[in-house]
């Protein structure tokens, strides 16, 4: 019997990231652009997805709804005629690549288009796990306060596009635009920030155009 130390140096995310990359490649080959939608509970993720879909009228859209429990959002999307499936994580705080890979078999994916994956409402761990996305979209509401980039830096650093919702509440919550943007720019020099009103579907045109452009450059 002998004791021996073996060097490993293996990233614990490796397997998740490998599956995420495979999913991204497979979806790309089908002409499906994948958007990982992140944000705190109540930020307006589902409402923003609905407004974006209305703007993307020429695209076939698929949605995967991730929630700890319930299918309220899925029912809402299905009523609008959007092909949607529900994942309930029963307590887990984020979606991961193996879960998404498995759930994709429940979607028709019969046409090229866009797949929105609404992650669990949480500003922490969804940012740490790739799930097979081409881009990460962060939905942030003014009601959460302007200090969020400083408190949850990774979500803002990893975001490819940020939508700021509920701007009409700014004065009620002392939202400081300058402080918010300063924090974002320290973390992420290039991410576009679009101010929208998800409740009435206002201000989404620029975000829709940005997503279409990114899709066209990612999917040939």
């Amino acid at each position, binding site marked *: 019997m002998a004791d021996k130390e073996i060097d*490993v*140096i*293996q990233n*614990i995310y490796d397997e998740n990231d490998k599956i995420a990359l495979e999913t991204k490649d497979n979806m790309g080959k089908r002409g499906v652009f994948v958007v990982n939608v992140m944000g705190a509970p109540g930020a307006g993720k589902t409402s923003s997805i609905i407004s974006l879909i209305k703007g993307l009228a020429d695209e076939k859209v698929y949605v995967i709804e991730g929630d700890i429990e319930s299918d309220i959002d899925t029912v809402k999307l299905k009523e609008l005629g959007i092909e949607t499936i529900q994942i309930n994580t029963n307590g*887990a*705080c984020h979606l991961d690549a193996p879960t998404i890979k498995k759930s994709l078999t429940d979607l028709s994916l019969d046409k090229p288009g866009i797949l929105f994956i609404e992650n669990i409402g949480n500003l922490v*761990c969804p940012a*740490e796990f790739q799930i097979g996305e081409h881009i990460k979209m962060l939905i942030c509401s003014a009601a959460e306060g302007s200090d969020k980039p400083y408190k949850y830096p990774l979500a803002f650093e990893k975001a490819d596009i940020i939508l700021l919702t509920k701007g009409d509440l700014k004065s009620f919550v002392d939202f400081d635009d300058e402080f918010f943007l300063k924090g974002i720019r320290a*973390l992420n020099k290039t991410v576009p920030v679009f101010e929208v009103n998800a409740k009435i579907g206002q201000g989404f045109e620029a975000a829709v155009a940005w997503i279409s452009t990114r899709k066209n450059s990612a999917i040939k």
Partner: protein
Amino acid sequence: MHEFPVTEQIIKIAAEQAEKNNALKVTQINLVVGESSGFIGESIQMYFDIISEGTICKGAILKMENVKTKWKCPACDILYSRQPLSFACPNCGMDGLPTEIGREFYVQSIEIET
């Protein structure tokens, strides 16, 4: 909940390496865990004790090397720990850039009995 699948992955990595090296058992797993990796050592340990049952890793010591998060000032070229609600460099006040220091989350090595 968060640490459960991650702990399974740690055991999988350690068990694969142990088998490759004809180990009888894994006595220690050395992890590097950055402060901003989002993982809590105590929580990993709790799941490890449960999940490692019946595997070659049962009873192994989980040793964690913690790494403090660092930011980098583009002007002064120094690494620093940030203050709450600020990314400013303590030297010149300019907002620094995030670095990978503090995000580590990997299995450094395993110790085995053969």
